[in-house]
């Protein structure tokens, strides 16, 4: 809720509306709603005297894009907000009705994604025929209700609530990190009284230690309980609670305990005051000095929408952006706090490893010349390229084209391993789409631990389980879940039993209306992956998970680059090419089996962090990180999104695709694109869906077209794809905060 919005509503009475309206009748009508005296004394009469609402009322736009969705047209009811009629579905609250009518009601405890608590009383409005002002967030709207948000009574009520809240709120805004984006500050400016009458001592509360991410200053807490509701409802950890009564009321973790949730950072955003703030960001910057860049996250395959706040060349913090289809308004802790990794361990100069094993900084000219020369000395089959998990589509396209021009086709994206079914998009995407997971009633998770692999997808599953009591079956090693689930088994054996209908879970699947099967991309590395996928397909078939109106067969990818890599056809030609390679081009790839690269191979590492790949590299070419370049990424559900550069590149680094383009020219196989637009039109010929930004392109054909595999299932149980949630790629491995988290929060 922005101060501007609130202030303009509070300070500017209907003057502008009056000016814009020419009709004398509506002029009279509007001024009456503002003074409101007749309604106060004789509500019935006033209601009768009120003219029928006419279309010449100035149209109002719903607040913050509030959407009205009528599940059933008969359920629509009409209410009047400040005399303005709105149609809303039954069951909406008064506050929501006001939002649809374009009136912003001040609030502290109400949050649209959490349950209703109704304990702050800031949202009081007047409703005709009710003796007292009502808390609009907790009051269902009834047909014909006449809601008044602008009357003296409502204003006085808000002023009173503000005064009570400020009684015990410390006056430490100058040293508070929330200052400038604090709901309490904004609303006391807009609705508060200009003086207080409180002369006693303010209360103080002991600060709690919630771990390395969330800083608490509990004296500032206004007991809205948003954080408690978030922890129990969305994050699914019962860590936070309300202790004590009356003025002894405190938020805390009943016993001394850290908050161990992968979504804990979100309490920083939902806390309306500065009681919960970001620990790494504490006292680092003021929010009005920051430049916000709307971009996307690459630390997992979800592609959460984020805003990078930067000051000068430094990323100061990362906060979520609303995207209903992907991350709603939450992000995982890894996304939020990995940013300090962007400042450490960075590569900033091209370097060549000398005879003594040490790196020597050289100029780009020399580095590219050396690489180009070696590339020509080896046989084309001995050239191998591996794209890293954070690679964008443009650079992967360039890498593939470059290697193809050199005569090799051994290029892939590291997490995909030897997976080579890139022909059918449905074979590697989350076909159901993240938001449609909410429609599912039975989940079968095969070898995937969504809580660590894709925290936002897990939050969706949890939301579904909470809302509809959907059943969750899980096959894989024992894992942490924050919702009820049934651990069916640990390996392919169980999968086979379900496929053959011998398992008790088969009936649950076949009775389900919208079953969802999620296969983890960690299985891509298994020898029997084809057999697993055909077993899964058999299950999907018998459960009717793939129908024209519903596609419940999903693959949950692990990293940001994977989907685009498969779309662009980055699949290795032969299984063992890495073992026989003489020239290896690692484009940000750190998680390949570096031991498999022969000792005499020449390794080029192009990337932004001095991570595992650099230890083996002979030449290092510094590249830009996701916060510094414009790149296209496709998330696990097939939605294409683009990053936007927020800060300049460090040192002498260059954008990934530019490096490959330059290298190709030095090597004499010049790639035909010089600009981002040109490389995108090249991508268009391969995977046009990568140009439809912010759109989800569902797979057209279903998997049933795939030939049956006659591989044998091995009995080896499924492994965990991600050992440490907090450290999965070069950025997070370089981050100090993530290192602290893994030390303190991981369950041993």
């Amino acid at each position: 809720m922005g101060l501007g919005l609130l202030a303009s509503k509070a300070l500017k009475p209907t003057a502008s509306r009056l000016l814009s309206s020419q009709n004398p009748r509506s002029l009279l009508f509007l001024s009456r709603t503002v003074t409101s005296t007749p309604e106060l004394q004789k509500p019935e009469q006033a209601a009768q005297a009120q003219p029928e609402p006419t279309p010449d009322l100035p149209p109002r736009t719903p607040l913050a894009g509030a959407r009205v969705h009528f599940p059933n047209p008969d359920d629509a009811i009409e209410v009047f907000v400040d005399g303005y009629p709105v149609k809303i579905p039954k069951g909406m609250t008064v506050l929501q009705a006001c939002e649809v009518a374009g009136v912003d009601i001040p609030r502290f405890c109400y949050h649209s994604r959490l349950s209703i608590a109704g304990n702050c009383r800031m949202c009081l409005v007047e409703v005709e025929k009710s003796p007292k002002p009502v808390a609009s967030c907790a009051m269902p709207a009834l047909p014909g209700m006449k809601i008044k948000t602008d009357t003296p009574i409502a204003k006085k009520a808000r002023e009173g609530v503000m005064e009570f809240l400020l009684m015990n709120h410390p006056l430490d805004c100058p040293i508070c990190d929330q200052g400038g984006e604090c709901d309490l500050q904004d609303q006391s400016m807009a609705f508060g009284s200009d003086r207080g009458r409180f002369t006693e001592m303010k209360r103080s509360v002991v600060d709690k230690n919630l771990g390395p991410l969330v800083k608490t200053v509990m004296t500032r807490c206004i007991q809205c309980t948003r954080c408690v509701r978030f922890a129990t409802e969305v994050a699914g950890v019962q860590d936070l609670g309300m202790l004590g009564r009356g003025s002894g009321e405190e938020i805390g973790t009943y016993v001394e305990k850290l908050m161990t949730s992968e979504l804990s950072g979100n309490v920083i955003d939902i806390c309306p005051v500065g009681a919960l703030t970001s620990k790494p960001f504490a006292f680092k910057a003021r929010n009005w000095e920051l430049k916000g860049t709307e971009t996307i996250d690459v630390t997992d395959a979800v592609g959460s929408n984020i805003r990078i706040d930067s000051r000068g060349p430094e990323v100061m913090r990362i906060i979520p952006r609303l995207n209903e289809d992907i991350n709603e308004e939450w992000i995982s802790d890894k996304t939020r706090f990995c940013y300090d990794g962007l400042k450490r361990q960075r590569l900033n100069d091209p370097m060549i490893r000398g005879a003594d094993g040490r790196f020597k900084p050289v100029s780009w000219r020399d580095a590219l010349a050396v690489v180009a020369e070696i590339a020509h000395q080896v046989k084309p089959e001995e050239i191998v390229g591996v794209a890293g998990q954070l690679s964008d589509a443009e650079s992967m396209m360039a890498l593939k084209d470059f290697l193809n021009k050199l005569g090799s086709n051994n290029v892939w994206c590291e997490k995909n391993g030897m997976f080579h079914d890139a022909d059918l998009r449905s074979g590697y995407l989350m076909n159901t789409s993240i938001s449609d997971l909410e429609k599912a009633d039975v989940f079968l998770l095969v070898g995937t631990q969504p809580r660590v692999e894709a925290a936002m997808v897990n939050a969706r599953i949890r939301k579904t389980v909470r809302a509809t009591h959907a059943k969750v079956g899980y096959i894989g090693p024992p894992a942490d879940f924050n919702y009820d689930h049934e651990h069916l088994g640990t390996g392919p054996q169980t999968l086979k039993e379900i496929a053959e209908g011998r398992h008790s879970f088969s009936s649950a699947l076949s009775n389900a209306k919208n079953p969802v099967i999620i296969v983890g991309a960690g299985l891509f590395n298994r020898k029997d992956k084809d057999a697993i996928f055909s077993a899964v397909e058999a299950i999907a078939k018998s459960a009717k998970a793939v129908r024209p109106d519903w596609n419940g067969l999903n693959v949950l990818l692990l990293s940001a680059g994977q989907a685009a890599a498969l779309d662009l056809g980055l699949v290795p030609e032969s299984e063992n090419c890495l073992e026989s390679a003489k020239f290896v081009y690692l484009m940000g790839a750190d998680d390949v089996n570096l031991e498999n690269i022969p000792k005499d191979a020449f390794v080029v590492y192009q990337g932004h962090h001095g991570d595992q790949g650099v230890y083996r590299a002979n030449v290092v070419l510094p590249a830009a990180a996701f916060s510094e370049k414009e790149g296209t990424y496709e998330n696990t559900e097939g939605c294409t999104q683009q990053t936007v550069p927020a800060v300049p590149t460090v040192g002498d680094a260059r954008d990934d695709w530019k490096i490959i383009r330059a290298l190709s020219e030095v090597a004499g196989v010049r790639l035909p694109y010089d600009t981002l637009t040109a490389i995108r039109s090249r991508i268009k010929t391969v995977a046009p869906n990568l140009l439809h930004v912010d759109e989800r392109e569902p797979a057209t054909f279903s998997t049933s077209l795939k030939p049956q595999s006659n591989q044998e299932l091995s009995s080896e149980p499924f492994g965990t794809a991600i050992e440490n949630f907090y450290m999965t790629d070069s950025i997070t491995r370089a981050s100090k905060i993530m290192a602290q988290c893994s030390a303190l929060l991981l369950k041993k």
Partner: protein
Amino acid sequence: MSFSLRSVKVPPNSASLEEARSRVFDFFREACRSIPSVIDMYNLDDVVTVSRLRSTIASEIRKNSHITDPKVIDMLLFKGTEELNNVLEHAKQRHHLIGQYVVGRQGLIQDIGTKDQGISNFLKNFYTSNYF
């Protein structure tokens, strides 16, 4: 000595090209005479010699040798005097001088030339910066 040029004032316009020309020579001499004290003030002895600086000044002046309009020459002279004055008044710091007059305008990479022949604009730009 270092404050001798302090009162930079605008002299009357040169009446002819001849006069402008002789003023340029005056300025050049003036500048050359101050080189030793500049080297002294900014501790430049280890990076540059008097003769190198002298030829830098000469080449800066020669850059504008094609100009024949006395008014323009007057203006450039004024700017030159101002710059010299700034240098002598210690209004600059050591790295300014090194950057502008010792290392040169091209920056540290001096080997632009034969190597870059026949390469595309993209590669030329790539070698200089990431932003083009």
